């Protein structure tokens, strides 16, 4: 079977909406409900966050959700259990996003194998550098049909972007500004200039823009310079509160119709 990320990107070229959430938050067993409801509400792609105790690339919202998820008892082992039957009823691409240490401790081979068995299509591991991936990880990821997604930032020089482009088999994750994750509420001129600069490189890989994308307006602006965008912190903030988790997901997603 073709990788679901690859097929999505072939079919859909614009306004791809990807949603990130932290597994185990707000409650330990919300994972499957959140995924199912996101698909029902029109998300194109889902990034499932594996919580880590020391998420240095994340701002306060994802830090908090990770802390709570860990306190709730989330682990990679448990996450795979929860997702065991996910492919019986969810068909959009699923990506696991997390820091390298928990993945290393789980074991890279096992991790990739479980991803394939579970129907996971890709990974985003922000602190796994390109060079280490290429030398030590690429083979086992590809053997298990996983797209590993790399980040680029406003500081990434063209030569390196081209290298990342060549190594990518899914999409390129464009970090929208020099920052940790978190909603800023707007997209400024400097960011637009950066988006346009990357657009002009005519890369072979599709691009999704993430970090600081929070609502329909910022999603629309970012998407006009890429194939779509990713919302994380703003979605996680919307999961607070006492209502059933599915209604909170629906309420957040309603805006995008």
């Amino acid at each position, binding site marked *: 079977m073709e990788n679901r990320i690859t097929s999505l990107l072939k079919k859909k070229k614009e306004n791809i909406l990807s949603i990130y959430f932290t597994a185990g938050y707000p409650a330990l067993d919300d994972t499957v409900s959140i995924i199912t409801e996101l698909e029902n509400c029109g998300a194109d792609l889902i990034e499932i966050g594996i919580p*880590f*105790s*020391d*998420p*240095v*690339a*994340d*701002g306060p919202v994802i*830090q908090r959700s990770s*802390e709570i998820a*860990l306190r709730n008892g989330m*682990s*990679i*082992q448990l996450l795979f259990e929860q997702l065991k039957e996910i492919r019986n009823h969810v068909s959009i691409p699923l990506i696991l996003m997390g*820091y*390298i*240490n*928990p*993945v*290393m*401790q*789980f074991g890279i081979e096992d991790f990739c194998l479980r991803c394939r068995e579970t129907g996971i299509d890709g990974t985003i591991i*922000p*602190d*796994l*550098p390109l060079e*280490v991936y290429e030398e030590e990880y690429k083979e086992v990821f590809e053997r298990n049909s996983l797209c590993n997604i*790399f*980040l*680029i*930032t406003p*500081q*990434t*020089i063209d030569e*390196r972007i081209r290298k990342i482009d060549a190594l990518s088999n899914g999409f390129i994750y464009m*970090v929208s500004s*020099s*920052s*940790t994750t978190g909603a800023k509420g707007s997209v400024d001129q400097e960011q637009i200039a950066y988006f346009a600069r990357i657009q002009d490189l005519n890369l072979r890989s599709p691009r999704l823009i993430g970090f600081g994308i929070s609502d329909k307006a910022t999603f629309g602006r970012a998407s006009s310079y890429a194939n779509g965008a990713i919302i994380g912190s703003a979605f996680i903030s919307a999961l607070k509160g006492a209502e059933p988790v599915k209604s909170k997901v629906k309420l957040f997603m309603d805006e995008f119709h």
Partner: protein
Amino acid sequence: MNYQIDDKGYYGIFGGAFIPEMMFHNINELQKNYLGIIESESFRKEFRQLLEDYAGRPSPLYYSDRLSEHYSAHIYLKREDLNHTGSHKINNTIGQILLAKRIGKTRIIAETGAGQHGVATATVCARAGLECVVYMGAVDVARQSPNVEKMKMLGAEVRPVESGSKTLKDATNEAIRDWINNPVDTHYIIGSVVGPHPYPDMVARFQSVISEEIRQQLKVKTGREIPDYVIACVGGGSNAAGAFYHFLNEPQVQLIAVEAAGKGVDSGESAATTQLGRPGVLHGSRSLLMQTADGQVIEPYSISAGLDYPGIGPMHANLFVTQRARFLSATDEQALKAALYLSQKEGIIPALESAHALAALEMITFKPDDIVVVNVSGRGDKDMDAYLKYFQSQK
């Protein structure tokens, strides 16, 4: 065996640069340029001059009659406590501020545990006229308050960190986040031999002046450059890296690294990384790390804020697995006792961190001719609250 960094930034299997892309540009610049800069004639000259005139180096190598008598060996104390700002940390911050200026950075950030690195950073920033922000865990802000006041007086902004265990690890996380958010104008002065390559090697080089001096001073005092033992405490491991550096390839020198056992290695409240840790990645390098089976970092504990860290530098992880260095650990209680002993026998009040190194003297059986150098990494002014409490409880 080579115990130094290899050309890919590793010490054996430890080290490397496990960093998010947001840090790549700055780290890559450092990797490409640090050796060229710090080995240049002009840098070396300026660095040496400042170590001498500003930090007060060389620090004395003091023969302790009373410890020598007590432990039946020749005990020398390397007096890093006499440096400007009160610890070895100034050696590194002088080096890094000169580097930061040469790469055109205008804003400096740092993490600090005991506050010694924070004070040393604030100090060199004041002198260089650069903006300085220091991240410090809220627990450490409370237990090392004299240093917080000093940093403020020196013109630095101290940002208390409320996440995690509110200690050194969390302050480091927050400093890394600051750098990700300010990649253009900011240099991050890491305070120990931790972090992504090239930090462990760069900081070790700046601290290596400690063992360079020990060799020269021992030669003058004893006629031989090579001691039998060098003992140093290990938080991240910068004072130990500096004290070991020029002895790494002298196999007859026993290198003793002393970790903080906290309330006891098996008490659940400890920071003895080599005994409790496994290989893992934190703060940009692969090293030994205290962690759960799932790879979540365990919050460490030590009475000493400077040793209260769940990892050690990759150089030390390699010295541990290759058995080049012997790793011991001292409890809170043993360190306090050693601090009181040195105070009353020699009139030197050591930092709580350094007291862990001194505590190791109790654990080793020396021969009468042994030459033993203990690195007294800092002075105890900042620890007077903890010492008074202990002192009173002993009455």
